[in-house]
Protein backbone atom coordinates (compact mmCIF):
# COMPACT_ATOMS: atom_id res chain seq x y z
CA UNK A 1 0.00 0.00 0.00
CA UNK A 2 2.78 2.40 1.03
CA UNK A 3 4.66 1.55 -2.14
CA UNK A 4 1.63 2.34 -4.26
CA UNK A 5 1.09 5.67 -2.53
CA UNK A 6 4.77 6.52 -2.81
CA UNK A 7 4.75 5.66 -6.50
CA UNK A 8 1.68 7.82 -7.06
CA UNK A 9 3.22 10.75 -5.21
CA UNK A 10 6.45 10.40 -7.13
CA UNK A 11 4.51 10.38 -10.38
CA UNK A 12 2.66 13.51 -9.35
CA UNK A 13 5.88 15.31 -8.51
CA UNK A 14 7.84 14.16 -11.52
CA UNK A 15 5.04 14.52 -14.06
CA UNK A 16 3.05 17.46 -12.87
CA UNK A 17 -0.08 18.51 -14.64
CA UNK A 18 -1.00 22.06 -15.43
CA UNK A 19 -1.53 24.29 -12.42
CA UNK A 20 -4.99 25.82 -12.80
CA UNK A 21 -4.84 28.42 -10.08
CA UNK A 22 -7.72 30.87 -10.36
CA UNK A 23 -9.09 29.21 -13.45
CA UNK A 24 -12.55 27.82 -13.79
CA UNK A 25 -13.19 25.27 -16.47
CA UNK A 26 -16.79 25.23 -17.62
CA UNK A 27 -16.34 22.94 -20.60
CA UNK A 28 -18.08 25.56 -22.72
CA UNK A 29 -14.94 27.22 -24.04
CA UNK A 30 -12.53 29.93 -22.92
CA UNK A 31 -15.01 32.81 -23.20
CA UNK A 32 -17.39 31.16 -20.76
CA UNK A 33 -14.43 30.18 -18.59
CA UNK A 34 -13.61 33.90 -18.36
CA UNK A 35 -17.20 34.79 -17.54
CA UNK A 36 -17.31 32.12 -14.83
CA UNK A 37 -13.95 33.19 -13.49
CA UNK A 38 -15.23 36.72 -12.98
CA UNK A 39 -18.56 35.60 -11.52
CA UNK A 40 -16.82 33.31 -9.02
CA UNK A 41 -14.18 35.79 -7.93
CA UNK A 42 -15.64 38.14 -5.32
CA UNK A 43 -12.32 40.00 -5.19
CA UNK A 44 -13.13 41.13 -8.75
CA UNK A 45 -16.91 41.38 -8.50
CA UNK A 46 -17.14 43.61 -5.42
CA UNK A 47 -14.91 46.49 -6.66
CA UNK A 48 -16.68 46.43 -10.02
CA UNK A 49 -20.03 46.54 -8.25
CA UNK A 50 -18.83 49.45 -6.11
CA UNK A 51 -17.56 51.34 -9.15
CA UNK A 52 -20.82 50.75 -11.04
CA UNK A 53 -22.85 52.01 -8.07
CA UNK A 54 -20.61 55.06 -7.81
CA UNK A 55 -20.86 55.75 -11.52
CA UNK A 56 -24.64 55.51 -11.31
CA UNK A 57 -24.77 57.90 -8.38
CA UNK A 58 -22.54 60.31 -10.30
CA UNK A 59 -24.94 60.49 -13.22
CA UNK A 60 -25.37 59.14 -16.75
CA UNK A 61 -22.22 60.75 -18.20
CA UNK A 62 -20.01 59.04 -15.62
CA UNK A 63 -21.95 55.83 -16.12
CA UNK A 64 -21.24 55.89 -19.85
CA UNK A 65 -17.55 56.65 -19.29
CA UNK A 66 -17.08 53.77 -16.86
CA UNK A 67 -19.09 51.50 -19.13
CA UNK A 68 -16.50 51.80 -21.89
CA UNK A 69 -13.27 52.55 -20.01
CA UNK A 70 -13.45 49.70 -17.49
CA UNK A 71 -13.68 46.77 -19.95
CA UNK A 72 -11.03 48.25 -22.25
CA UNK A 73 -8.64 48.87 -19.35
CA UNK A 74 -9.32 45.38 -17.96
CA UNK A 75 -8.59 43.80 -21.32
CA UNK A 76 -5.42 45.88 -21.76
CA UNK A 77 -4.10 44.99 -18.32
CA UNK A 78 -4.99 41.36 -18.88
CA UNK A 79 -3.18 41.15 -22.20
CA UNK A 80 -0.11 42.69 -20.58
CA UNK A 81 -0.35 40.23 -17.70
CA UNK A 82 -0.48 37.27 -20.08
CA UNK A 83 3.21 37.72 -20.81
CA UNK A 84 4.10 37.74 -17.10
CA UNK A 85 4.85 34.49 -15.36
CA UNK A 86 4.38 35.57 -11.77
CA UNK A 87 1.01 35.91 -10.14
CA UNK A 88 0.44 38.93 -7.99
CA UNK A 89 -1.72 38.35 -4.97
CA UNK A 90 -2.39 41.62 -3.26
CA UNK A 91 -5.45 41.13 -1.06
CA UNK A 92 -4.62 44.21 1.00
CA UNK A 93 -4.51 46.40 -2.12
CA UNK A 94 -7.76 44.92 -3.41
CA UNK A 95 -9.40 45.52 -0.04
CA UNK A 96 -8.11 49.09 0.04
CA UNK A 97 -9.57 49.76 -3.41
CA UNK A 98 -12.93 48.41 -2.29
CA UNK A 99 -12.72 50.45 0.90
CA UNK A 100 -12.22 53.69 -1.03
CA UNK A 101 -14.94 52.96 -3.60
CA UNK A 102 -17.42 51.77 -0.97
CA UNK A 103 -16.79 54.89 1.12
CA UNK A 104 -17.44 57.12 -1.89
CA UNK A 105 -20.72 55.28 -2.50
CA UNK A 106 -21.72 55.52 1.17
CA UNK A 107 -20.97 59.25 1.16
CA UNK A 108 -22.85 59.69 -2.15
CA UNK A 109 -19.93 61.61 -3.66
CA UNK A 110 -20.57 62.68 -7.24
CA UNK A 111 -17.37 62.18 -9.18
CA UNK A 112 -16.14 64.47 -11.96
CA UNK A 113 -16.11 62.72 -15.32
CA UNK A 114 -12.32 62.61 -15.53
CA UNK A 115 -11.92 61.10 -12.08
CA UNK A 116 -14.56 58.45 -12.76
CA UNK A 117 -12.82 57.47 -15.98
CA UNK A 118 -9.44 57.47 -14.23
CA UNK A 119 -10.70 55.24 -11.46
CA UNK A 120 -12.22 52.87 -13.99
CA UNK A 121 -8.95 52.76 -15.92
CA UNK A 122 -6.84 52.10 -12.84
CA UNK A 123 -9.18 49.50 -11.38
CA UNK A 124 -9.63 47.75 -14.70
CA UNK A 125 -5.95 47.68 -15.52
CA UNK A 126 -4.94 46.35 -12.10
CA UNK A 127 -7.55 43.60 -11.90
CA UNK A 128 -7.15 42.76 -15.56
CA UNK A 129 -3.43 42.39 -15.04
CA UNK A 130 -4.07 39.96 -12.19
CA UNK A 131 -6.43 38.00 -14.44
CA UNK A 132 -3.78 37.94 -17.13
CA UNK A 133 -1.07 36.63 -14.84
CA UNK A 134 -3.50 33.87 -13.86
CA UNK A 135 -3.30 32.84 -17.53
CA UNK A 136 -6.93 33.41 -18.30
CA UNK A 137 -6.10 33.74 -22.01
CA UNK A 138 -7.15 36.37 -24.52
CA UNK A 139 -10.56 34.79 -25.13
CA UNK A 140 -11.16 34.40 -21.41
CA UNK A 141 -10.31 38.06 -20.92
CA UNK A 142 -12.73 38.92 -23.69
CA UNK A 143 -15.42 37.06 -21.78
CA UNK A 144 -14.57 39.03 -18.64
CA UNK A 145 -14.64 42.32 -20.56
CA UNK A 146 -18.05 41.51 -22.04
CA UNK A 147 -19.35 40.60 -18.60
CA UNK A 148 -18.02 43.86 -17.20
CA UNK A 149 -19.85 45.80 -19.90
CA UNK A 150 -23.13 44.08 -19.08
CA UNK A 151 -22.73 44.36 -15.30
CA UNK A 152 -21.79 48.05 -15.37
CA UNK A 153 -24.56 48.82 -17.87
CA UNK A 154 -27.22 47.13 -15.73
CA UNK A 155 -26.08 48.39 -12.33
CA UNK A 156 -25.18 51.96 -13.30
CA UNK A 157 -28.33 52.41 -15.39
CA UNK A 158 -30.45 51.07 -12.53
CA UNK A 159 -28.89 53.52 -10.07
CA UNK A 160 -29.23 56.42 -12.51
CA UNK A 161 -32.93 55.62 -12.86
CA UNK A 162 -33.54 55.83 -9.11
CA UNK A 163 -35.60 58.86 -8.16
CA UNK A 164 -37.07 58.17 -4.73
CA UNK A 165 -34.82 59.47 -1.92
CA UNK A 166 -35.03 56.18 -0.04
CA UNK A 167 -33.75 54.29 -3.07
CA UNK A 168 -30.55 56.34 -3.17
CA UNK A 169 -30.21 55.72 0.55
CA UNK A 170 -30.42 51.99 -0.15
CA UNK A 171 -27.50 52.37 -2.56
CA UNK A 172 -25.54 54.23 0.11
CA UNK A 173 -26.28 51.46 2.61
CA UNK A 174 -24.91 48.99 0.06
CA UNK A 175 -21.78 51.16 -0.07
CA UNK A 176 -21.42 51.00 3.69
CA UNK A 177 -21.67 47.22 3.54
CA UNK A 178 -18.88 47.20 0.96
CA UNK A 179 -16.77 49.31 3.32
CA UNK A 180 -17.44 46.86 6.14
CA UNK A 181 -16.52 43.90 3.94
CA UNK A 182 -13.33 45.60 2.81
CA UNK A 183 -12.27 46.34 6.37
CA UNK A 184 -12.77 42.71 7.33
CA UNK A 185 -10.79 41.71 4.23
CA UNK A 186 -7.96 43.93 5.47
CA UNK A 187 -8.19 42.21 8.83
CA UNK A 188 -7.94 38.82 7.14
CA UNK A 189 -4.97 40.03 5.10
CA UNK A 190 -3.08 41.06 8.22
CA UNK A 191 -4.52 38.38 10.48
CA UNK A 192 -2.41 37.62 13.50
CA UNK A 193 -1.20 34.07 14.03
Amino acid at each position, binding site marked *: MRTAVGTALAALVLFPGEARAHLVTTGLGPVYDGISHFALTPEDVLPVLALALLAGLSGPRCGRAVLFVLPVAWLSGGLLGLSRSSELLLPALTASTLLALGALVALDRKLPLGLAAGLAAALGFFHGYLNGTAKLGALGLSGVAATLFVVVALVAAFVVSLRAPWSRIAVRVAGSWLV*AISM*LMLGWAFRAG
Partner: protein
Amino acid sequence: MPRLPALLFAAAHIQPGEASGLLSGFLHPISGLDHVLAMIAVGIWGAQLGPPAVWLLPVTFPMVMAFGGTLGLMGVALPGVEIGIAVSAIVLGALVLAEARPPLALAALVVGFFAIFHGHAHGTELPQGQSGILYSIGFVIGTGCLHAVGITLGLVHRWSSGRVALRAAGAVVALAGVGFFVRGLA
Protein backbone atom coordinates in the same frame (compact mmCIF):
# COMPACT_ATOMS: atom_id res chain seq x y z
CA MET B 1 11.08 21.97 -12.79
CA PRO B 2 8.87 19.62 -10.79
CA ARG B 3 5.97 21.19 -8.99
CA LEU B 4 4.59 20.12 -5.69
CA PRO B 5 1.68 17.71 -5.93
CA ALA B 6 -0.55 20.24 -4.27
CA LEU B 7 -0.34 22.42 -7.33
CA LEU B 8 -2.18 19.79 -9.29
CA PHE B 9 -5.19 20.55 -7.22
CA ALA B 10 -4.61 24.28 -7.04
CA ALA B 11 -8.01 25.30 -8.28
CA ALA B 12 -8.43 28.53 -6.38
CA HIS B 13 -12.05 29.46 -5.68
CA ILE B 14 -12.64 25.91 -4.54
CA GLN B 15 -10.31 26.08 -1.59
CA PRO B 16 -10.93 24.22 1.65
CA GLY B 17 -13.49 26.02 3.75
CA GLU B 18 -14.55 28.28 0.93
CA ALA B 19 -17.89 26.60 0.31
CA SER B 20 -18.86 27.07 3.94
CA GLY B 21 -17.33 30.52 4.29
CA LEU B 22 -20.37 32.50 3.20
CA LEU B 23 -22.78 30.47 5.32
CA SER B 24 -20.63 30.42 8.44
CA GLY B 25 -20.01 34.15 8.08
CA PHE B 26 -23.75 34.75 7.80
CA LEU B 27 -24.51 32.57 10.81
CA HIS B 28 -21.79 34.01 13.04
CA PRO B 29 -23.53 37.28 14.01
CA ILE B 30 -26.80 35.49 14.74
CA SER B 31 -25.22 32.72 16.77
CA GLY B 32 -25.04 34.69 20.03
CA LEU B 33 -28.08 36.09 21.80
CA ASP B 34 -26.12 39.07 23.15
CA HIS B 35 -25.16 40.13 19.63
CA VAL B 36 -28.62 39.48 18.26
CA LEU B 37 -30.43 41.54 20.89
CA ALA B 38 -28.04 44.48 20.61
CA MET B 39 -28.24 44.62 16.84
CA ILE B 40 -32.01 44.33 16.76
CA ALA B 41 -32.15 47.08 19.40
CA VAL B 42 -30.13 49.31 17.08
CA GLY B 43 -32.70 48.77 14.34
CA ILE B 44 -35.63 49.42 16.69
CA TRP B 45 -34.01 52.57 18.07
CA GLY B 46 -33.41 53.84 14.56
CA ALA B 47 -37.06 53.21 13.71
CA GLN B 48 -38.13 55.09 16.84
CA LEU B 49 -35.93 58.05 15.90
CA GLY B 50 -37.12 58.04 12.29
CA PRO B 51 -35.18 59.41 9.29
CA PRO B 52 -32.27 59.88 8.92
CA ALA B 53 -31.36 57.85 12.04
CA VAL B 54 -33.34 54.87 10.76
CA TRP B 55 -30.68 54.28 8.13
CA LEU B 56 -27.72 56.12 9.62
CA LEU B 57 -27.50 53.96 12.75
CA PRO B 58 -27.65 50.63 10.90
CA VAL B 59 -25.02 51.99 8.50
CA THR B 60 -22.75 53.11 11.34
CA PHE B 61 -22.93 49.85 13.24
CA PRO B 62 -21.62 47.43 10.54
CA MET B 63 -18.82 49.76 9.49
CA VAL B 64 -17.54 50.35 13.01
CA MET B 65 -18.12 46.71 13.87
CA ALA B 66 -15.99 45.71 10.90
CA PHE B 67 -13.29 48.03 12.19
CA GLY B 68 -13.50 46.27 15.57
CA GLY B 69 -13.40 42.92 13.76
CA THR B 70 -10.28 44.03 11.92
CA LEU B 71 -8.63 44.91 15.23
CA GLY B 72 -9.58 41.47 16.55
CA LEU B 73 -8.23 39.73 13.46
CA MET B 74 -4.97 41.64 13.70
CA GLY B 75 -4.57 40.61 17.32
CA VAL B 76 -5.01 44.09 18.81
CA ALA B 77 -6.15 43.57 22.39
CA LEU B 78 -9.28 45.27 23.67
CA PRO B 79 -10.01 44.91 27.38
CA GLY B 80 -13.44 44.06 28.74
CA VAL B 81 -15.00 42.95 25.48
CA GLU B 82 -17.66 40.72 27.04
CA ILE B 83 -18.54 43.40 29.58
CA GLY B 84 -18.74 45.96 26.78
CA ILE B 85 -21.15 43.74 24.86
CA ALA B 86 -23.32 43.25 27.95
CA VAL B 87 -23.35 46.99 28.65
CA SER B 88 -24.29 47.61 25.01
CA ALA B 89 -27.44 45.53 25.48
CA ILE B 90 -28.24 47.38 28.73
CA VAL B 91 -27.71 50.84 27.25
CA LEU B 92 -29.34 50.21 23.87
CA GLY B 93 -32.27 48.47 25.56
CA ALA B 94 -32.64 51.39 27.97
CA LEU B 95 -32.53 53.89 25.11
CA VAL B 96 -35.32 51.98 23.34
CA LEU B 97 -37.26 51.73 26.59
CA ALA B 98 -36.95 55.47 27.19
CA GLU B 99 -37.46 56.22 23.48
CA ALA B 100 -34.53 58.57 23.93
CA ARG B 101 -33.98 61.25 21.30
CA PRO B 102 -30.39 62.49 21.56
CA PRO B 103 -28.77 64.50 18.75
CA LEU B 104 -28.09 62.35 15.71
CA ALA B 105 -24.32 62.56 16.08
CA LEU B 106 -24.51 61.41 19.69
CA ALA B 107 -26.77 58.50 18.76
CA ALA B 108 -24.33 57.42 16.06
CA LEU B 109 -21.45 57.79 18.51
CA VAL B 110 -23.16 55.55 21.07
CA VAL B 111 -23.95 52.89 18.49
CA GLY B 112 -20.47 53.08 16.99
CA PHE B 113 -18.79 52.83 20.39
CA PHE B 114 -20.55 49.59 21.25
CA ALA B 115 -20.11 48.21 17.74
CA ILE B 116 -16.35 48.06 18.33
CA PHE B 117 -16.84 45.53 21.14
CA HIS B 118 -19.16 43.35 19.06
CA GLY B 119 -16.80 43.48 16.09
CA HIS B 120 -13.74 42.71 18.17
CA ALA B 121 -15.43 39.68 19.71
CA HIS B 122 -16.35 38.39 16.27
CA GLY B 123 -12.87 39.10 14.92
CA THR B 124 -11.12 37.08 17.59
CA GLU B 125 -13.59 34.20 17.22
CA LEU B 126 -13.38 33.82 13.46
CA PRO B 127 -12.40 30.28 12.55
CA GLN B 128 -9.23 29.40 10.66
CA GLY B 129 -9.39 27.90 7.21
CA GLN B 130 -12.31 29.92 5.92
CA SER B 131 -12.39 32.03 2.79
CA GLY B 132 -11.85 35.50 4.20
CA ILE B 133 -13.80 37.43 1.61
CA LEU B 134 -16.81 35.10 1.48
CA TYR B 135 -16.88 34.93 5.25
CA SER B 136 -16.78 38.72 5.39
CA ILE B 137 -19.63 39.05 2.90
CA GLY B 138 -21.78 36.62 4.87
CA PHE B 139 -20.87 38.31 8.12
CA VAL B 140 -21.90 41.78 6.94
CA ILE B 141 -25.10 40.52 5.33
CA GLY B 142 -26.01 38.65 8.53
CA THR B 143 -25.48 41.79 10.57
CA GLY B 144 -27.50 43.87 8.13
CA CYS B 145 -30.35 41.36 8.28
CA LEU B 146 -30.48 41.68 12.06
CA HIS B 147 -30.74 45.45 11.76
CA ALA B 148 -33.45 44.98 9.15
CA VAL B 149 -35.36 42.79 11.60
CA GLY B 150 -35.16 45.58 14.18
CA ILE B 151 -36.27 48.23 11.69
CA THR B 152 -39.15 46.03 10.54
CA LEU B 153 -40.26 45.50 14.13
CA GLY B 154 -39.99 49.25 14.56
CA LEU B 155 -42.62 49.81 11.88
CA VAL B 156 -45.26 49.30 14.59
CA HIS B 157 -44.05 52.59 16.07
CA ARG B 158 -46.79 54.39 14.12
CA TRP B 159 -49.43 52.97 16.48
CA SER B 160 -49.64 53.85 20.16
CA SER B 161 -49.87 50.20 21.19
CA GLY B 162 -46.90 49.52 18.95
CA ARG B 163 -44.85 52.20 20.69
CA VAL B 164 -45.61 50.54 24.02
CA ALA B 165 -44.62 47.15 22.61
CA LEU B 166 -41.32 48.54 21.34
CA ARG B 167 -40.53 50.08 24.71
CA ALA B 168 -41.32 46.74 26.33
CA ALA B 169 -38.93 45.10 23.89
CA GLY B 170 -36.30 47.61 25.00
CA ALA B 171 -36.89 46.59 28.59
CA VAL B 172 -36.41 42.93 27.67
CA VAL B 173 -33.13 43.72 25.90
CA ALA B 174 -31.89 45.75 28.88
CA LEU B 175 -32.80 42.99 31.32
CA ALA B 176 -31.07 40.43 29.16
CA GLY B 177 -28.05 42.75 29.14
CA VAL B 178 -28.02 42.68 32.93
CA GLY B 179 -27.96 38.91 32.72
CA PHE B 180 -25.05 39.02 30.26
CA PHE B 181 -23.25 41.48 32.54
CA VAL B 182 -23.60 39.22 35.59
CA ARG B 183 -22.46 36.24 33.54
CA GLY B 184 -19.50 38.27 32.27
CA LEU B 185 -18.41 39.13 35.78
CA ALA B 186 -18.66 35.52 36.93
